[in-house]
């Protein structure tokens, strides 16, 4: 397991941070763990810039100070400053531009990307054409020309089915989060949880 802090060394120490009743487990290498412990205690100069002069105790130690972000909804730790080892794109860059930097970014940011894909796509797994295999255009032509006479209201009915309703709600949730309408986002999240249960 790689260290959650430096993303380079092997993690050999588990550390639990507790803040306002929230608990976060970190896997750290000895060097980073030592730094963390010092911060919690004596406040080294390295971290001075992060903290206010009146920094009182380790109670104020937050994941954000280590480039980590705890997502309360997902219960996940976000590593906002993590950069793709191949192209250097950071997750933050992706959040700003909506663009990934290279194929390796899909692995680098996998846990967060899966959340994004769940929101914007039908599924998170590809089931279509594979490279090097000719697309079966003949059969698809037939499929496409095989007219289905169902009424368009069928689409409306389909949208009201739980699975589709769920994806609609998820889409609305992501829009609400984008718009920073957290009140609406909270309502939508509850509805989603209700449906998923």
């Amino acid at each position, binding site marked *: 397991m790689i260290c959650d802090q430096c993303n380079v060394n092997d993690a050999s120490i588990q550390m639990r941070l507790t803040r306002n009743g929230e608990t976060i487990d970190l896997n750290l290498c000895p060097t980073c763990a030592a730094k963390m412990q010092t911060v919690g205690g004596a406040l080294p100069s390295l971290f001075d810039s992060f903290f206010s002069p009146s920094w009182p105790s380790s109670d104020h130690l937050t994941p954000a100070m280590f480039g980590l972000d705890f997502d309360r909804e997902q219960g996940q730790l976000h590593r906002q400053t993590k950069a793709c080892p191949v192209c250097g794109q950071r997750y933050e860059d992706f959040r700003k531009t909506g663009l990934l930097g290279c194929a390796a970014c899909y692995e680098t940011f996998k846990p967060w990307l899966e959340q994004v894909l769940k929101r914007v796509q039908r599924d998170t797994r590809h089931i*279509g054409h594979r490279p*090097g295999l*000719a697309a079966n*255009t003949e059969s698809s*032509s037939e499929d496409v*020309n095989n*007219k*289905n006479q169902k*009424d*368009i209201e069928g689409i409306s009915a389909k949208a009201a089915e739980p699975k589709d309703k769920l994806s609609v709600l998820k889409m609305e949730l992501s829009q609400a989060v984008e718009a920073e309408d957290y009140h609406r986002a909270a309502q939508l999240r509850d509805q989603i949880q209700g449906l998923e249960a």
Partner: protein
Amino acid sequence: MAWYIENGPKQETVLSTRVRIARNLQEMPFPNRMNPVQESEAEKLIENTFLSLDMSKPRTNWSIVRLEELGKMQKLALAEKHLLSKRMLEPGCGKTLIINKAENLSMMILEEDHIRVQAMSAGLDLAKAYKEATNLTFNLEEKIPMAWSDDYGFLTACPTNTGTGLRASVMLFLPGLIRTDRMRYMTDILGKAGYAVRGSSGEGSKIMGYRIQISNQLTLGLSEEEILRDLQHLVDNLIEKEEESRIKLLQADKLGLEDKVFRSRGILENARRISYEEAVNLLADLRLGLSLGLISEGLSLVSLNRLDTNIGNASLQQICGKALIDCELDESRARLIREELKGPDRRTR
């Protein structure tokens, strides 16, 4: 004849069909993270690979357009024909455009993704457009390793394209649904069902000439065939609803509709200056009149298709061969329309 002037299946409701496939080179960062050396390397690789394909011969059937060598007006004219994306109008975005003679098959190099193959077809013909686009894409895939993951399929710069990289869209002509105010309801349903609904000039553009573009938003978790079949199903339903609505319009006030169509014709045949928006809207009335049989003498769909393609600001300036200021544009547009509506098509049809 260029593809966009031809008539295609369901032309009375579907103006055109477009299929776009995005691919990226396995070994290179996506265009937004490339340095100039990588850009030039990727550009050469893609272009040379294309030129090594049988389908690129004879070479005279293809134009290779370097965007940096084009003026703003030339770029806009390509964008008006949907051969360049809006993104590629920005300086520094996109390098090369390869287009076939009929202008129905093209490839944008180093746009948001390394390769974007696009096939267009008159009327509603998803199967044909898809076949043409995959033919080129598959040929390239055989020669260049593409960015691929077993989980996510073909990898693209934006996760909204990943998986199949396939975006299929249709440009619809929906005067019935819009005039009977049913489109608002349809738009709502379509959005929830995973489709993007836009005005004729793409994202954020307003609806003119009763034109609405619909495209799939989901590219992952569905096969290419499913994406196309679902869109086909949807469009078939919309066509049916549109036809019903046009009949309702006719039944409600045939004379009123005729009055509108003939007035529009009167303006188009006589105006000395006309703005783009007014022209598009009035031409749409003629298209509706033609489809309902209210007007036929001296008017053909081919004429209307040709005008729709040529009356955009940039295309007009290309036809005139010089840069025009606003009132000159309106004058040239009015002249072009008068000539086309009184031209040879009037006698042949």
